[in-house]
């Protein structure tokens, strides 16, 4: 993993965090924004798992277990928020 690539990932994660914070701070939350925040979290988690944890080129079982945790957790949170709209 080149150091330049790691730096790019770091900047992307910082920007995504500021975007999440801005949404929460400045906007009236609605279902679209909740979905947007969850998608941003999924992308951030994906980058951390692939490039900081260095699972990008590890056999799919291990990568799948951690990615599966990320996606399942976000899906359960989305389900709970969706049920709250009813």
């Amino acid at each position, binding site marked *: *993993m*080149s*150091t330049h690539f*790691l*730096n790019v*990932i*770091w900047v992307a*994660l*910082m920007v995504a*965090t*500021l975007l*999440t*914070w801005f*949404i*929460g*701070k400045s906007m009236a*939350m609605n279902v679209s924004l*909740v979905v947007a*925040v*969850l998608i*941003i*979290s999924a992308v*951030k*988690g994906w980058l*951390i*798992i692939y*490039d*900081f*944890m*260095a*699972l*990008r*080129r*590890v*056999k*799919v079982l*291990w990568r799948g*277990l*951690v990615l599966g*945790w*990320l996606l*399942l*957790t*976000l899906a*359960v*949170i989305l*389900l*709970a*928020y969706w*049920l*709250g709209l009813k």
Partner: protein
Amino acid sequence: MIAHTPIPAPADPHKGHKHHEYPPGDLAIWVFILAELSAFFVLFAAYAFTRLKHLDLFNEMQKTLDSDAGMLNTLLLITGSWCVARAIAAIKRNLCRQSAHWLLAGILTGVGFLIVKYFEYGAKFAVGINLDTNLFYTFYIALTMFHAMHVVLGMAILLIIWKKAMAGGYSAQDHHGMETGASYWHMVDLVWIILFPLVYIMR
């Protein structure tokens, strides 16, 4: 101090298309990481489904949290994770001292995280908020303190690795222990990536 010769190009094990059989570091840490992630999954699901039954309370109480502190702590943990990833990149080039400096920077982001948390908790406790205040604050305090304990453990592991790195104990050929500690530290970051929007942002 053992002097290692720097090697010019990053000895990137991911170069080419070869997929590794196992993740970086000791396999035991990955079993531990998966157990920790499972525990946090249960806590996050419990928060989300308890909120369902107390929507008004959770939405009102969430507004009393300091989302600036939450954002600052997210930036600190992401930076800490990046520092440790840079430490691994450095040791793969045999740059032991540089790797140690990145590890120290990672530890300092953990210190920063705990300082922010200290002031955040201090502001809440000063106005009489505690675990019994209401269901939202029970979850907020329990979840964030449980996570903070993991930050402290991660810092302790990084400290041990940093000392060994300062003594020249790792090299491009032998940095399995550093990867083990780094993997745990990244897990602490990964968990906060979900905790921050769940507790501070989404309502």
